[in-house]
């Protein structure tokens, strides 16, 4: 189990390799990586081009909330392991923002827990994105679809 908040990039392959190494009770690993897109909002034709974004966070509370989310995942599913990595600072399109992963004897638990981790993280971990476009900077609004996704787990 681990939670990391960092400015630097991470290597999903290396994280994944460490995840299952030497364990013969793991049946499946589910991993999700979130990346910076190059347009604002939901629709690539409607949104302005994003040159970069900056992720602000609340040091201390971020780690505390991520650890609580991971503990909740472990309480709900029989996980062999779980991992959350979230970056902060300035990020350009194509860069990795976040990685969540869960492993279990059975794929159901791995998938569900992985989905839970990202859904709760999106609505509970204190990060805020500001997008840098040619029209200026704009704080990203919270999305109702993210709220709805998180509510499924309540």
């Amino acid at each position, binding site marked *: 189990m681990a939670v990391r908040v960092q400015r630097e990039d991470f290597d999903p392959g290396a994280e994944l390799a460490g995840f299952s190494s030497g364990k013969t009770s793991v049946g499946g690993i589910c991993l999700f990586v979130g990346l910076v897109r190059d347009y604002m909002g939901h629709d690539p034709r409607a949104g302005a081009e994003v040159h970069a974004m900056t992720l602000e966070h*609340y040091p201390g*509370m971020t780690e505390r909330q991520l650890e609580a989310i991971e503990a909740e995942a472990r309480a709900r599913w029989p996980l062999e392991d779980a991992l959350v990595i979230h970056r902060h600072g300035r990020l350009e399109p194509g860069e990795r*923002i976040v990685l969540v992963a869960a492993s279990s004897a059975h794929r159901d638990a791995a998938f569900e827990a992985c989905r839970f981790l990202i859904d709760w993280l999106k609505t*509970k971990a*204190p990060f805020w994105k500001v997008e840098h476009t040619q029209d200026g900077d704009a*704080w990203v609004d919270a*999305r109702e679809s993210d709220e709805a996704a998180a509510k499924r787990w309540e």
Partner: protein
Amino acid sequence: MKVLYFAWLKARTGIGEEMVEPPPGTDTVGGLVEFLKTRSPGHAAAFETLSVVRVAVNQDYAGLDTPVRPGDEVAFFPPVTGG
């Protein structure tokens, strides 16, 4: 009491972090907000629409009714947008 602001609340107040001494009897987040609004026009603007302001007391999510006392760390920020 330590008060933190993030994202556009930081931009509006012009402050990331400040130490404040609210008047005696300020014992909830709601009371603290009323006090903070009087500190500057930027503060007033930050707290203009409370429905889009989230709060944490000592790094746990809280509400306007949550008790606060001297020594607490209280943070105000918009709904989160990480991930």
